[in-house]
């Protein structure tokens, strides 16, 4: 309410409009309706992963899996190459005529290195794609947003969306059964 007031007078930058829901199923339906109504710059904030919500807000390209595969392959090949260089090129050691490239003995370290790099890719890649760490985000200004990690579900339509309109978007969100709709400053 506070935010709304200041917009009328001076007009600080607006990040978007946030609607609060109290049920996970309701927010999936609301997000789907918003997407179907043509809104594209929208996101939902929930205390736990809600199945289908990512598709409802139009998120389809999850790049984490290919990244992890790439990480694993990088680690495994680097691990094998390291052992190859050590045992064949840098420090060849002939023991009873046994082959220098005794590859079965190199498998454990190759495997562990693959796992290690895949895990790095999964964790650091996921956080990087999510743009975290990011201590400040405008959506934290939404009223009651501290409940987004507890039991409230928020749908945000951003002001940069082409269809965003102070009045129309508000009445649209209210029509979806939101508990509360408010404007969020950037």
């Amino acid at each position, binding site marked *: 309410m506070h935010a709304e007031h200041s917009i009328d007078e001076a007009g600080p930058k607006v990040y978007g409009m946030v609607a609060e829901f109290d049920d996970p199923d309701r927010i999936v339906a609301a997000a789907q309706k918003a997407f179907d109504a043509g809104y594209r710059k929208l996101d939902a904030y929930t*205390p736990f992963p809600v199945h289908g919500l990512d598709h409802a807000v139009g998120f389809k390209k999850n790049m984490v899996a290919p990244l992890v595969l790439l990480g694993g392959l990088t680690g495994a090949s680097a691990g094998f190459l390291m052992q190859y260089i050590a045992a064949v090129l840098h420090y060849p050691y002939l023991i009873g005529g046994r082959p220098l490239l005794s590859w079965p003995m190199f498998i454990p370290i190759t495997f562990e290195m693959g796992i290690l790099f895949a895990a790095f890719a999964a964790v650091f890649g996921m956080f990087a794609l999510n743009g975290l760490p990011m201590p400040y985000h405008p959506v934290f200004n939404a009223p009651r947003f501290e409940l987004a990690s507890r039991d409230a579900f928020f749908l945000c339509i951003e002001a940069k969306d082409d269809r965003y309109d102070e009045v129309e978007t508000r009445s649209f969100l209210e029509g979806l059964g939101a508990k509360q709709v408010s404007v969020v400053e950037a």
Partner: protein
Amino acid sequence: MAVVQNRLTDIDPQPPLLEPGHDYGTLTDKVGDIVDRKPHPRAWIVTMAVASLLLLLFLNAVGYLFVKGTGIWGINVPVAWGWAIINFVWWIGIGHAGTLISAILLLLMQDWRTSINRFAEAMTLFAVACAGMFPLLHMGRPWLFYFILPYPNTMALWPQFRSPLVWDVFAISTYATVSALFWYTGLVPDLATMRDRAKNKLAKIAFGMASLGWRGSARHWSRYEMAYLLLAGISTPLVVSVHSVVSFDFAVGIIPGWHTTIFPPYFVAGAVYAGFAMVLTLAIPIRKLYHIEDIITMKHIDNMAKVMLVTGLVVSYGYFTEAFFAWYSGNIYEKYMMFSNRMSGYYAWSYWALIFCNGFVPQFLWFKRIRSNVYALFAISIVVSIGMWLERYVIVVTSLARDFLPSSWGNYHGTIWDWATYLGTIGLFLFLFMLFIRFVPMVAIFELKALLYSQKHNGKAH
């Protein structure tokens, strides 16, 4: 997933994983309040005091070790490994249950892991920290530990990559790193919850930093869940590989009693066995102390007891196979090791104590009355922990003390410094664990809420 579960519950109605009457808010409060609770329960303070004393004992033992060298331990030639390696394998095995619960049970879609995975993972992390102490200290000059890592050096030397001891370095350090990443990734959304709940400014800042600004965006959750699933997917072969590599430390050697192919699977089963015993040892007092019996229900306790029974049977089968192949091989050294040495030699007490602890006592877990009695389960899990320690004692000591040549035989006993170091790591473990309980939510809050959500949905589907 849901279809299969519904069908199973139709056939065999199970007690609930969450006691009824919870909503998203009360679950958040239930777990979050444990951290915010003031003053903290007296039992926590007492345990912390004991843990701190044991930690001091550890620091003293290590300090004296640095001054005098590994001679203060009972190790000798031929038994150069002694308690240090026994304790190393014991701790690393305990850690494996945490990964099993968080990764393998996630892949198998076992909902009951949700209430216990967080603190089982913490247990893994701290157990690995304790395990890591032993090979380092056992080096004699631990400040030169980096000699075993591949790094560019003026001697132009590489580690011997064909050695299981070098594999071990890679396996254990990868395991410690991945466990820490897995644990922290699981923690981030809950740290955000703690940030949003915090009244105290300092706590808000600390949780705010640690939660990386998590805001629960649908896009973030989508990537998060994928990353978490893949971490579980890669942790599963990892945990199997780690204890297999640990068993290679023995199995690749030619010492009688070590040189067997049963070692990798039987070590992995033993690790899960010991780990579940430790999870029960921790879970039984914690759920009572913090009144979270509605989150860690008797269903969880019962399931853990069943896993313990199954892995205990696998381990017992391993003991049987060892004995059978010692006889069937026709090799005089293997036969001597098994029958004349382990079963009836100088260390026979340790072998039969091991069979009693790991083979006989867990048979009580067949009975539902035992599995629903937390006192009996607590006692059994302590016995299993002792049994698993004895198993490594039998493997390390009896084999090294009696190898091929009688002229190189020699007996071995741990000294008071072995005891001090061992008890000291228990102190380190408890110390870290108590800090964990005090400062971060010990049950995965967001996963509990997701569980509640899926339960509501399954209910509606009927």
